[in-house]
């Protein structure tokens, strides 16, 4: 921490590089400094923790206030590999964990599409992976966590309601400094993956509904520019951890070798509009054609299957100076027509989403602000242009469809939701606020996301 404890003013954005704001960044040297900071931090503009900045929107920014850079707390404290448990500081990334556990035959039970997320951030957003339908969210694989709040420190377990308020609580219940994470045993560092094409949305969803449960991991990519009979065509990839018997002989010698690399880096600047309708259409066509028409099995590495974009350092810069946003929503089972309607309107508007990912979620957990509910989730990466009013109107209309279907958007990715829809999409918001207010009655914990959506209810 800087001598005066006030940190260094830095301009921060989320991964989408939109809406920059300035905050005083403090680098705590340990959990003690986090505690000291929170107890004395009742400044007008508050505090929030930040990990590796992979939230797409403004969850880990705090205009004019303090941001705690938690990546300084990155020790692996204790591992019990008989029980498959690892106790780590909150600034440890899932990549750090994997580098240590995979060669020893263990894999984090839940990993999102990037290994560059911290454990603290994974809890705060209650992230999910391709195995949500089997294993639930990240916090479902957390045994214990240490939470620092303005009202003192808590060692929490899943029996505590504050544990679940912190899961998906977007860092607004306190600062997690340590957690014990459950690991899954693996025989190899490889995945056995089935890949298949689906000609349209109905076909794709039918395939997912029928056979997702046969696989631990499942996700589909959708071509959002395809229209008419091909509307919602996509490529479905599903898999499981490979056994040694699955591996080709060349890999058998060192089955647990895990050496992720970043062979590519995005240039520091990319021309605005590089990812436009034409380039995305070309990419989509290629990607669809590359996938086999009939189901085929193959062996993929962990980075290829789980974290393909991590191979390109700073890939978010490819969207140019005005950045991009990710729109991810979920609608409950039985509301497939809402999903269909959104994909249709997206195709009609010819709004190019470079990546559109469809996944069927399993049941929700008890965390009041956790995003996943049983149903269908679609994530869209959308470039932001100067004239963004088309996107503004389109997404606002999607919000209404999602809310009416009893669904919600993902706060870890949000950068533009209408605040009035927040309590509709998250009906347990009041319960969360009550639990939260007990540990932060003076609203010391805040963020730009909180200011924009009034999550903590300071203004209500």
């Amino acid at each position, binding site marked *: 921490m800087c001598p005066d404890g006030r940190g260094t*003013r830095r301009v921060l954005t989320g991964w989408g590089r939109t*809406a920059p704001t300035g905050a005083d960044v403090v680098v705590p040297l340990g959990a003690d400094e986090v505690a000291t900071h929170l107890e004395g931090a009742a400044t007008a503009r508050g505090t929030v923790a930040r990990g590796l900045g992979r939230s797409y929107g*403004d969850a880990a920014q705090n205009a*004019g206030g303090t941001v705690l850079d938690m990546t300084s707390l990155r020790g692996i404290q204790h591992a019990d590999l008989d029980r498959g448990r690892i106790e780590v500081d909150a600034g440890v990334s899932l990549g750090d964990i994997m580098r240590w556990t995979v060669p020893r035959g263990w894999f984090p039970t839940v990993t999102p599409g990037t290994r560059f997320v911290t454990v603290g951030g994974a809890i705060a957003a209650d992230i999910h992976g391709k195995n949500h339908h089997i294993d639930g969210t990240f916090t479902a694989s957390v045994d214990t966590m240490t939470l620092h709040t303005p009202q003192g420190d808590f060692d929490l377990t899943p029996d505590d309601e504050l544990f679940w308020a912190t899961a998906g609580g977007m860092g607004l219940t306190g600062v997690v400094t340590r957690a014990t994470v459950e690991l899954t045993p693996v025989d190899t560092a490889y995945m056995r993956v089935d890949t298949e094409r689906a000609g349209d949305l109905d076909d794709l969803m039918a395939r997912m509904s029928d056979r997702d449960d046969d696989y631990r991991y499942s996700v589909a990519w959708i071509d959002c520019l395809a229209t008419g009979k091909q509307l919602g065509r996509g490529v479905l990839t599903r898999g499981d951890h490979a056994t040694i018997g699955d591996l080709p002989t060349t890999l058998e010698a060192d089955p647990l070798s895990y050496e992720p690399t970043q062979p590519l880096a995005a240039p520091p600047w990319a021309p605005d509009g590089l990812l436009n309708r034409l380039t995305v259409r070309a990419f989509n066509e290629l990607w669809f054609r590359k996938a086999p028409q009939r189901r085929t099995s193959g062996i993929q590495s962990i980075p290829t299957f789980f974290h393909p974009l991590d191979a390109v350092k700073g890939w978010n810069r490819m969207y140019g100076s005005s*950045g991009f946003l990710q729109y991810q929503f979920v609608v409950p089972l039985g509301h497939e027509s809402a999903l269909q309607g959104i994909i249709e309107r997206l195709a009609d508007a010819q709004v190019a989403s470079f990546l559109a990912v469809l996944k069927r979620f399993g049941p929700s957990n008890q965390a009041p602000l956790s995003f996943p509910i049983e149903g269908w989730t679609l994530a869209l990466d959308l470039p932001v242009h100067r004239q*963004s009013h088309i996107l503004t109107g389109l997404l606002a209309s999607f919000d209404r469809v999602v809310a009416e279907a009893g669904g919600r958007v993902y706060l870890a990715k949000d950068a533009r939701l209408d605040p009035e829809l927040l309590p509709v999409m998250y009906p347990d918001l009041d319960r969360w606020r009550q639990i939260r207010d007990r540990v932060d009655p003076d609203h010391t914990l805040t963020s730009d996301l909180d*200011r*924009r959506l009034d999550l903590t209810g300071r203004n209500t």
Partner: protein
Amino acid sequence: MRDALGRIRTVLVLGGDSDIGVATARRLITDRGADTVILAGRDQERLRVRQDELKRVGAQTVDTVHFDALDPPQQHRSTIDEIWADRGDIDVTLLAFGTLGDQLRDEQDAQRAVEVINTNFTGAVSVSIPVAQRLRTQGHGVLVVLSTIAAVQARRTNFIYGASKAGLDAFARGLGDALHGTGAHVQVVRPGFVHTQMTEGMDEAPFSVTSDDVAQAILDGLDRDVIHVPAPVGAIAAVLRNLPRPLVRRLPR
């Protein structure tokens, strides 16, 4: 707080009866979702007319506040403090007040010339400093400073006004540099000839624009340091600036 698609909430117009200021506030309401506007100006009756106008286009709250550019700095500071205390963070602050003066009369009357300078330059500096401090503290927000193309190249017909705006223009650019890296931002706007109450009755110059054209350009260029409206006048001013003086004197108007 601005969102990823440029939606904002709160706008402060210093010079709340300015045509460009109000046109920009109107655009921020209709195109960017602004719901709260504070109109700060001298003539409360005229501000109330503007207040109605902005409410009609969809603003939920429009405050009117007394503000006079010729008030002393302490007065400016307490006005700014009150506005921030009442309304919290301000996303866009428009420094839109100014007077054209009467060149031929003012160059014969030092008192009047000084009043133009005191309004356009001294008053603007005096109120910009507390605004900038607030923006630095809140870590976000834009201060839009209405300069003019005459700040780049003042002419025989407007050099007192041009000089006052040249001072303001230089000050605002420097202030933007000072705020760089804090999350706050300064946008300097240099319009050519704009049809407003200020220019009423004057001969129209080439490339003339309306207040709404300026408003649109401000919204489109909110992240930029300096904008010219319309864009070509920037190039023209750059040429004029480098012409030898005798030639400039011979140009029409």
